[in-house]
């Protein structure tokens, strides 16, 4: 595998293939290997990269993967299953990019490697099966291997389906199939607010699992499908409760499709925070009082920059007091659920979830609030495994329970 004959230390590329990684050589060479991507030293002894701090070699961390990328473009190594194993271990939490000394877009490098690996058929086995298997994403348009026809099984407002409306609710796979309460809470909140919204009967996965796998063409197809349906219904804005889906539309879609979206994508928290700020909505007191700690979803936070909206909402709910974890906002630690690593790296994922839950417990809070279905699922499973007394809720549940609008039953 090593090209021993290579002598050029930093010269011309020794390969002339069409690999995606080769186009990024100038960025790869900007990494000076300082290692700030490895931990949050500004917070003390604090983990940053879940894979690396899970006890694995540097090849699993950002600095290591940049070293691997450099070795690839310099022709010292080539792609193989071992390299794929490192690259796909990333939760895409983006913590490594947060205080990169050179301000590098680390995930762009990882995505390019994933594109190459995907083209070589080197996606890890369980992940590949979830995408391409008999009941995979390609077929049923979700990664939970659930029938597409059951996507709206949670919905009690059938009149909302496929109706022309200015606002759409993009439900997402996790809310649709495995955390349906989040879908219900979000929809009921929209109902209470009197929003005229629509949901798609033929909603497909946003495409995030394809992007995380490096299958960008398939992600484009997914996005195009949904965008076309929304355009037919005259949708002008789309409300999400899943940061991953929102990021796919807001951040990835314009880059992948080469054009602006024909609608405004936003997280429901942004809308609720705005309405609360403008005095349009109030919240009923929580009784008995609760102490919550808020877990910043990596996608909502570091990818989309939404840190304060959830905190503003929590502060406005009477009876709720908020205690911050040591690692919060842009320095928050990943719950371990990102990048769909649970398929093939359950140990990394579990360890990160446990560490983060312990950090939440250390605040003395009785309730862990998050704003992402993947984080919610991860923490609920972790809490059950550890038999923690911590209550785990998504913020959409708190909002729906406590929102105070005319017509809402006591």
């Amino acid at each position, binding site marked *: *595998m*090593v090209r021993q004959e*290579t*002598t*050029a*230390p*930093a*010269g*011309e590329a020794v390969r002339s293939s069409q690999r995606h990684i080769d186009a990024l*050589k*100038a*960025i790869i*060479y*900007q990494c*000076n*290997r*300082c*290692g*700030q991507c*490895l*931990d949050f*030293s*500004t*917070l*003390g*002894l*604090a983990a940053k990269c879940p894979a690396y701090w899970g*006890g694995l*070699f*540097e*090849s699993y961390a950002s*600095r*290591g993967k940049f*070293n*691997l990328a*450099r*070795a690839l473009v*310099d022709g*010292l*190594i080539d792609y*193989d299953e*071992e*390299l794929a*194993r*490192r690259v796909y271990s990333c939760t895409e939490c983006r913590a490594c990019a947060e*205080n990169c*000394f*050179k*301000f590098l877009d680390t995930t762009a490098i990882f995505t390019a490697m994933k594109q190459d690996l995907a083209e070589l058929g080197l996606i890890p086995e369980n992940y590949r099966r979830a995408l391409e298997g008999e009941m995979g994403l390609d077929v049923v348009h979700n990664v939970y291997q659930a029938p597409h026809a059951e996507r709206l099984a949670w919905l009690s407002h059938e009149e909302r389906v496929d109706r022309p409306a200015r606002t759409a609710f993009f439900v997402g796979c996790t809310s649709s199939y495995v955390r349906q309460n989040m879908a219900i809470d979000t929809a009921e909140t929209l109902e209470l607010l009197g929003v005229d919204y629509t949901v798609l009967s033929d909603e497909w996965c946003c495409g995030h699992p394809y992007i995380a796998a490096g299958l960008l063409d398939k992600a484009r197809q997914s996005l195009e499908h949904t965008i076309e349906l929304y355009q037919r219904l005259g949708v002008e804005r789309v409300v999400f409760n899943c940061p991953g889906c929102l990021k796919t539309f807001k951040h990835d879609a314009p880059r992948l499709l080469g054009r602006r979206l024909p609608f405004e994508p936003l997280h429901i928290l942004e809308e609720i925070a705005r309405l609360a700020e403008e005095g349009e909505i109030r919240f009923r007191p929580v009784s008995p009082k609760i102490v919550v700690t808020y877990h910043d979803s990596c996608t909502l936070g570091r990818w989309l920059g939404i840190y304060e909206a959830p905190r503003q909402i929590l502060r406005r709910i009477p009876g709720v007091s908020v205690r911050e974890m040591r690692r919060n906002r842009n320095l928050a630690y990943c719950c371990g659920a990102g990048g769909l690593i649970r398929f093939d790296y359950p140990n990394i994922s579990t360890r990160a979830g446990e560490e983060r839950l312990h950090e939440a417990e250390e605040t003395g809070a009785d309730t862990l609030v998050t704003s992402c279905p993947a984080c919610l699922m991860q923490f609920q499973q972790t809490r059950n495994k550890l038999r923690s007394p911590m209550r785990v809720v998504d913020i959409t549940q708190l909002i729906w329970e406590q929102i105070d609008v005319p017509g809402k039953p006591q």
Partner: protein
Amino acid sequence: MPSLKEDLTAVCGPERVSDKLVDRICYTRDCGPSPGGIPGYVVRPVSTEEVAGIVRAANRHQTPIFVWGRSTTFIGNGIREGCILMAMDLMRAIERIDLERKLVVVQPGAVWHAVDVELNKLGWELGVPGPGGMFSCSIGGSVAYNAVPHGLAEYGMTGEHVAGLEVVLPNGEILHTGSGANEPAGHPHFERYANGPDLTGLFIGSCGVFGIITKVYFRIRRIPEAEEFAFYGFDSVDRAVDAAQSIQQQEAATHLVGLFGGPKPAGYEQYDAFLHIVVRDSRLRAGERRRIAEAVCEAHGGHPLDSNATRRYWTEHMYSWLRNTPPDYYYGNRPYTCPEVAGFIPTQAVKDAIAYLRQDAVEHAEEFQRYDIRIKCYDVYFSRNGAFIWIDTLYPELDERSWRYGLALRERYTDELMRRYMSPGGILQALAPVVMPKLGAGFELMKALKRTLDPNYILNPGVLLMEPEDTPQVTPEVAW
């Protein structure tokens, strides 16, 4: 006899030993431009006993070990093809904060700034604020290389604050230094200069060639009550250096930085040289010392500038603020790297060094342009009685010709400045061939010590040129 991999696995378990290329290739080089070899094995011990076990295995198999802290140095770590790479990153715990003895006991892989932050929560801090790589460098590595820290003018060097060490020797024995050598008393570390000669010093700055540091007993202090800042521009280097010397003599500054080359601080391009002054002390004394420093600067023709740049540099630990610019000014979006040259010189020699460097840039202007060499800085940390100068030239790493020119420039500057007055601080592998032969009897003594302590040349061979004299030299051309 079991294979080396079997021996290493017997010590550390299979999860912490790797012979896979994708793992090994991530441990080849530091932050600088010098290439390194690809290790044969990467092994990650979690205890002193495991370190000792690995060393014994390496001796049995006659395979050298290179120790990896965080590898945040800039002048090459000398890692050789096929070696055992011992990564210390899992030995990262703070074992004890001992306020009675004013010590923190840390494992070598602990990140410098992380330890400092944990101390800060108690109102304490490490004896020195850390070197340039403080956010990522390890304490063990910083001690092994005796890194030059911030606060040099008052606090001195990193090594001065080491009260004792636990070290694994090249034969696998475990050594405690200073007062910690007292075995019957249970190795009570608190005083370095006890129980005979200063064996602690043997392992400070020797880059791991005589032993592997497995525990550091580092001095701590209460966080000073006040910090004061001043920033001055001067019309000439000579006047700034004279001011710096007077500040040294009056012990007015905790940290004193001179800027004598490279881009000038934004907004102050009319000046030729600059001094940043940081004072840390009691509230009463800090103000007094700052006023002394200011009076000295003004007596030497200095012009007071906005010290917010100094404050931001000190509090954010970002060098870019020395030049009154945000961090991306230096570091953003350029595949450039830096063949750093650095060393101690007498304070007054700064005048000659800067004149030489400036003249050299003029004489080689055409070459600098051809190879796209940029001068990032000729900066100085003034110590208590001297100056630590570092010369950062940047070159585009993607251009192989520039890369070669950058390495040659590094050697030329080091050679010339050493012949005049410079003594490098942390002597790293890539410059060892330039530096060590100039050290005369000192070099011979080091070689004799190496032969005695490490007859198999197991620990970091080649670093400090510590290897048999007939060993073929690895040239940068043969590796990535």
